[in-house]
């Protein structure tokens, strides 16, 4: 017998005795989740305001920008302020042209890259699959936003999102992932909430433990 069969035999044997349940045991619905989780506001404006408040608390930077001109200007200002020398990004409607316009050496991660080279980049610029108001979370995937490392290896992660990508809560984000990818999920789906952090030394907050020290989210 294989170990798989051994384990399943023990499970079947164990489950012949029914456990007593305390209270309700049926699987909750999304409406149940929304009844108990923190409120997110009914209108899109309230949800943007919530996202912005959460971002401040997380020490992420969140900016609504008017158009691509303002976006380019914002990015150039960041480039100069932080003295970027190399930029990493991926091919995408929002980021390709933008990253190219910075006038710096550009590493595109699509189709593979040298990880030492990505490590040398000052910033990783990516799109996202969704923004979640409830938690100020950015949803990225290995397929749509440049792979697994682009959003964690460079010290600054810049996200370019569209306004219509805002969803109210985590439930809506999971529903969106399901409808967008069907059964063919990307191999990684990551919910990023603020820049990398640790409290492992005397419970004192330090940003940039392994991932980015800075997270900037521009929403067009």
């Amino acid at each position, binding site marked *: 017998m294989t170990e798989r069969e051994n384990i399943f035999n023990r499970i079947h044997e164990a489950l012949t005795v029914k*456990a007593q349940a305390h209270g309700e045991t049926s699987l909750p619905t999304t409406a149940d989740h929304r009844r108990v989780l923190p409120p997110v506001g009914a209108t899109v404006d309230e949800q943007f305001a919530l996202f912005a408040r959460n971002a401040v608390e997380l020490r992420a930077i969140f900016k609504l920008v008017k158009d691509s001109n303002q976006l380019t200007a914002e990015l150039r200002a960041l480039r100069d302020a932080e003295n970027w020398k190399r930029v990493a990004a991926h091919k995408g409607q929002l980021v390709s042209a933008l990253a190219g316009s910075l006038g710096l050496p550009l590493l595109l991660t699509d189709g593979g890259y040298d990880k030492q080279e990505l490590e040398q980049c000052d910033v990783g610029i990516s799109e996202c699959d969704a923004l979640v108001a409830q938690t100020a979370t950015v949803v990225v995937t290995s397929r749509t936003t440049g792979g697994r490392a682009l959003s964690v290896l460079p010290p600054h992660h810049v996200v370019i999102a569209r306004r219509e990508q805002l969803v109210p809560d985590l439930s809506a984000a999971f529903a969106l992932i399901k409808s967008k990818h069907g059964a063919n999920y990307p191999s990684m789906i990551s919910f990023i909430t603020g820049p990398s952090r640790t409290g492992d030394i005397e419970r004192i907050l330090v940003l940039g433990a392994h991932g980015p020290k800075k997270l900037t989210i521009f929403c067009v």
Partner: protein
Amino acid sequence: MSAPATHFKEDARRVSADLRHRGIIQTAMGKYEVVRDQRQRSFQDWQGARQLAAATKWQAVNHLDKHLEQFAQQIESRGTKVHWASTAAQARDIILGILREKNAKVVVKSKAMTSEEIHLNDAMEQAGYEVVESDLGEFIVQLREEPPYHLVFPAMHLTRGEIKDVFERKLHDAPSDEPEVLTMVARRVLRQKYLQADVGITGANFAIAETGMVSITENEGNARLTAALPRTMITLVGIEKVLPRLEDLALFLPMLAVMGTGQPITCYNTMYGGPRQPGEADGPEEYHVVLLDNQRTTLLADAEQRDALHCIRCGACLNVCPIFRNVGGYTYGTVYGGPIGSVITPHLRGLQDWKHLSYASSLCGACTETCPVKIDLHHHLLQNRRNASRSKPIWWQKIAFKLFAPVANSPALWSLTTKLGRIGQVFHGLIKGGVLDPAEAWTKTRELPPVAKQSFREWWKERK
């Protein structure tokens, strides 16, 4: 007394008198309590959320066969190799086999309590691999050659000075004792390890049956890098970690963060469903998931305590436990400490050797009250006491109860005994708390209330 029980008693006595240790733990827990309470209040209905979480886990665990089957089938369909391990030794062999096959040299790990449970690091190091823990707290305790102190905060018992010392000794790099500076030293050192590592090993917080994904919760990004850079990725996960549906995470990710660290949600919550897929930029060529039983099915077979498998390892029951806060994480001598560890360790490692942990409780019920998935922790401790004395009765307790039963059943004998008790207590005073006292273990540190001058029956008779 079993060896673990002796060890527990000695360490508990020593650590609970250590004021420095007490100070560190009180400060850390004080900070935790403030943010946890604040986050709980932000929920519309925290108690309702606990009930929903308990119901979800009840479904997951009581239909474990169905969910595991679905999880394995789904994740295999995207090119993941699933391995099944009944024992710790089998799990170690599977992982060592993968390392051999891949001709690995450097292994980078993100935090995994299951790997502590099977003593994976020792096995890999003995086989000649360089093993690097990447979670900052785990990295620190690895440098100090210690096990993690706490499920969520592995280095919470250390001061910045002690951390600076070990960095100086082992890394020869510790410019100051500022947490920021020390964290950046670790970041630099570990970056190089990531770039060298051939294999990345992670644990998992949840295994989603519906979509065949493991979900990993973290703050630092170390698990993200572990899953991104090495060519081979291995996830070691207990079979009880299944959740039925992807959307269940909408509840569990915030609840785990609130109870674990007092955050609304942690920085990175990532679902992995396979190796690098066609058209993706990076990720491991091979992905292995090792599903670990290691006595979990023994606990599953105990219908009374089956809900202990609901545990999401948030550490909240440790944080509120007056015993944990006094005796500390190492005294337990177990991988899983605190109330949940005291409940499950006798199932995982033998009831008679570990039954003393069932008494490491004031039965105050703070653990049960805080548990986000409503595990009936303090009652399980009582059940473990009952099971232990049932399977191996203690001779003097048997005699004591044999004597007590007729006394308690006869009003005349009871009345005589209480009268004798009054006299006996006078003489007991002569030996109380000393080596001659048969009740020494109790009376050494506690007062026995005096037997009343008049019993209730006497008082009642007088009034009539």
